[in-house]
Structures are given as C-alpha cells and as structure tokens.
C-alpha cells in the first residue's frame, strides 16, 4: 500500500512537471497545455501503455487530465469490440462519464451555493 502512495505522488507530480514545462518553456496557455495533455493521453491509451501505468501508479495516473483521453479511447475500443465501427462513436463516454457529469453537477451546485468573488 505504501509504495502505491509513493508512486502516485511521484508519477502524478512528474505529469504536472511536464505541464509546467509546457507553460514555461514552450509558453503555451493553460488551455493549450491541457488540450495537448489530453491528446497525449489518448495516444498513449491507443498504444495500450496507459493501463499498465494506472496499475503501477494508481491515482498518480488516473487523476491527471491525461487519463481523460485514455479512458475515452478505452471506452470507444471496448464498445467497438462488441459492436464494430459504430462502437467507436457510441462507446466514447462509456468509462469516463464521471469526470464530466461530476463537473456539471458540482458546477451547478457551486453556482447555487457560492457568490462570485472580486
């Protein structure tokens, strides 16, 4: 259990460092950086290397935004496995629905509860 916490910290931290380098060295905006990381996650998911990373680092791999791209690809591939080419479209949100639904639900609740500052 302890090594899992350690690797979650290290791998999660390293993915954030990659993001920080994109901010500072390549002078990308946060929007561009996040979009690039999601695309990288999708490509890694396509090659099947992201799942082993999750087994290895747990939340260190599932919490960074790259996992969003990976689970989109995995959802699409899973559904494509059962239903053929159409599955690529219909299975897209099969796995990763929680990120978006949680953001929508809590975003709305947040807007109900909190007042804008400044």
């Amino acid at each position, binding site marked *: 259990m302890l090594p899992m916490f350690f690797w*979650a910290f290290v791998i999660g931290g390293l993915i954030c460092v990659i*993001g920080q380098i994109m901010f500072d060295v390549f002078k990308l905006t946060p929007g561009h950086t996040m979009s690039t990381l999601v695309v990288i996650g999708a490509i890694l*998911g*396509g090659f099947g290397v992201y799942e082993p990373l999750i087994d290895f680092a747990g939340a260190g791999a599932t919490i960074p935004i790259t996992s969003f791209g990976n689970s989109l690809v995995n959802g699409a591939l899973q559904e*494509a496995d059962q239903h053929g080419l159409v599955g690529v479209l219909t299975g897209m949100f099969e796995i990763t629905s929680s990120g978006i639904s*949680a953001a*929508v639900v809590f975003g709305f609740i947040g807007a109900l509860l909190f007042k804008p500052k400044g």
Partner: protein
Amino acid sequence: MAKQKSPEQKRYEKIEQKHEAKRPVVKNCIKAFFVGGSICLVGQAVSYFYMYYFHFTEQTAGNPTVATMIFFAMLLTGFGVYDKIGQFAGAGSAVPITGFGNSVISAAIEHRTEGFVLGVGGNMFKLAGSVILFGVFSAFVVALIKTLLLIWGVI
C-alpha cells in the same frame, strides 16, 4: 504567418526580450511537482477508500475517485482557495482533474449573475470545452484507427 515587421517593431522586440522577466522554470517545476503529487496522493487515499469499502478494483476506482476530487475542487473553488493554490503551483493544480473541475465550477460561479440559463449554462464549459473537444476528437481518431487495423487484421 510571417508578417513583415517594421524596423520599429523589431527594435521593440529586442527591448521587450531584454526586459522580459525570466521565468524561474526549475522552481516552478518543483512547486508543480509537489502540489501535483500531493493532489494525486489525496486521490490515492480516496481510491483506497472506494476499494476497501465499496469493492472497486484498481482500474475501476478511478471513476468515483475523479468525481470525489471534483467535489473537493468545488468546495475549494467556492471558498476561493483553489485560485490561491493555482497561483502558487501553476500546472501542479491545473493538470490534475481538480483543475478541470475548477475551470468548470469557477466559470459557473462567475457567470451566475447573468442568469442560470445564459450565464451558468452557456459559460460553464468556456474553458474546459477545449479539453473535451480535443479529448473526444483525438480519442475518436485513435480508436477509429485501432479498430480499423484490428478489423483488417493488421494488428
């Protein structure tokens, strides 16, 4: 793309470069590493919680964990703490899913004065929309290529 620059503009660029503050890249990276790592550490604790009490596996625990982390992001954003973390940590707080949640939630809170339909509804995905667009589109392309290759028996 390559627009002709006037001599004044070139001179201005030189002066600008000379005076542009150097970004402390190494320091920023260290901050991003520790804050980003800590957020993932909390995430790991949440996943273990779901694995022990709700019988999720290592792979499936990701989903409820992400939702819980976004819930935390809502509280931190609402109380104005996430902005402060963001100023300190840069990518360390932006890259984890909490940063995605923060961008949705802060946009929702910020635009509530314009009403719930046009304000909150219309602006919620103002910043996070590009992440969803490029995530979904790249996933579509990747999955399409892989599925076609599997159908044709290449891999």
